[in-house]
């Protein structure tokens, strides 16, 4: 048996996290369900229907922030100087720790909240149908944009994991700030790059704001892959070393 990787320990560790956070998990899932329900109902008041795009919009509104808060909750024990002695001294290797956190924060979370969202959405449709005669179309709950939202989540979640481990206080605010600065940095970088490469051809829009949206829209497939790979897996590697190098 490999001494630093044991899949049973990963499962035990996931179970331990779920047990530890069961209060947080149940109350946040309840809040998520209520929010999705209310948003769906409000949405139906206007146009008597709930299209799949609208529903995914509502789902995103709850899914992403909740997931990020959950990622932070998962690292509470790691960050607090009063609990991390016990946590870091548990006989679990760094790769096992990271894998179990990642599985909990992504796979388990996505599956659970998706099921809840579908169930709540369906109930909201039923209620909407009865109250204001909205169109009852359960198929509207499924859409391809759901998958792109899941993709976006998988891509930003590791960044939040790193943030949760890097900052000691006001972890959420600092991570968002860092993320904002990073995005700004990339936009400026693109602007410069674009200006350098295309400057002579006079294709730059003259209006400053327009250039930003122009560059945003001009994200090539290559670029998307580049950043997707850079942020997702790269941040996971960063998270691994953050975990490994953590001292109390």
């Amino acid at each position, binding site marked *: 048996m490999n*001494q*630093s990787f*044991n899949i049973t*320990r990963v499962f*035990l560790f996931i*179970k*331990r996290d779920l*047990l*530890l956070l069961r*209060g947080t998990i149940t109350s946040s899932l309840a809040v998520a369900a209520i929010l999705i329900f209310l948003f769906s109902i409000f949405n139906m008041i206007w146009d008597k229907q709930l299209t799949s795009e609208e529903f995914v919009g509502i789902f995103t509104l709850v899914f992403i922030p909740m997931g990020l808060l959950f990622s932070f909750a998962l690292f509470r*024990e790691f960050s*607090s100087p*009063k*609990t991390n*002695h*016990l946590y*870091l*001294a*548990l*006989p*679990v*290797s*760094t790769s*096992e720790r990271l894998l179990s956190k990642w599985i909990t924060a992504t796979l388990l979370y996505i599956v659970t909240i998706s099921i809840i969202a579908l169930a709540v959405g369906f109930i909201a449709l039923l209620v909407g149908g009865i109250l204001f005669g909205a169109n009852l179309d359960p198929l509207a709950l499924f859409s391809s944009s759901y998958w792109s939202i899941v993709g976006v989540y998988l891509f930003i979640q590791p960044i939040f994991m790193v943030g949760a481990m890097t900052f000691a206080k006001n972890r959420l605010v600092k991570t968002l700030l860092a993320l904002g600065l990073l995005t700004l940095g990339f936009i400026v970088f693109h602007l410069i790059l674009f200006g350098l490469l295309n400057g002579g051809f006079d294709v730059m829009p003259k209006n400053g704001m327009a250039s930003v949206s122009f560059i945003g829209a001009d994200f090539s497939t290559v670029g998307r892959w580049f950043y997707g790979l850079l942020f997702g897996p790269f941040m996971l590697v960063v998270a691994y070393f953050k975990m*490994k190098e953590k*001292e*109390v």
Partner: protein
Amino acid sequence: MLHIRDLYFNYPNQVSVLKSIDLNLDTGNIYGLFGKNGEGKTTLIKVITGLLYPKSGECRFDNIPTSQRYPSVLQEVFLVPEDFELPAVSVNTFATMNSKFYPNFSQEHFDSLLKEFNINPLKTIPTLSFGQKKKVLIAFGIAVNTSLLLMDEPTNGLDIPSKSQFRKVMAASVDKGQCIVISTHQVRDLHSLINHVIILDDARVVLNQSLQRISEVLWFGRASGQDKNEIVHSEGAFGGKTIVKRGEKDESEMDLELLFNGVLQERQTINQLLEHA
């Protein structure tokens, strides 16, 4: 079992808290780690557990650096920290969720220790007092049965009856195959428990001796007139307590507090005596 070689440690942008530490810890012993506040006891314990990384030198458990935090090493090391927070679950749940990672954990032993400490395992941890929480962690630390058990100021926060319970539990729990390190500045609480003393001062190990060796060489008590030349350290004027060379005298009960003060003042004399006499 645990070997520390020429270890240095400092916190970022600060002077060294541990300098040139050499130590060997072996099974079958209860080590008392003494030192004034802020002399690096807690830091040393954290380095041993692998929670802090040496700046230079090494700290190995069965020849594996503890800073690697390999599960195989962590399974054999448990730390009861001085200050800690336990999760908001019942005592039993706390044990089940953590004990699975320690192959030698004994539920039976844990239950009997809780009983000894008068703690109801069904209670949720936040309803317990700090002393009771500490006892839960001590009971858990003993029940996981690791070959190295480290306790940082375990009697801090315990009331007088609990301190006695603690000594009873420790006396009964020590196994031949176990090594226990207790760090404290409350020398009196634990002196009957330990059989080896390590004193840290000024970031260094200034004494590292078995109590047996110490009582072979030194005699503790009130010295008579003819002992004058043999006095190593004395406290108070008339009839004060002294440490003298034992010579032909009967063995005396060791006064750890006196030894501690003696070592801080007469470090070289005492060490020379212990090494050569």
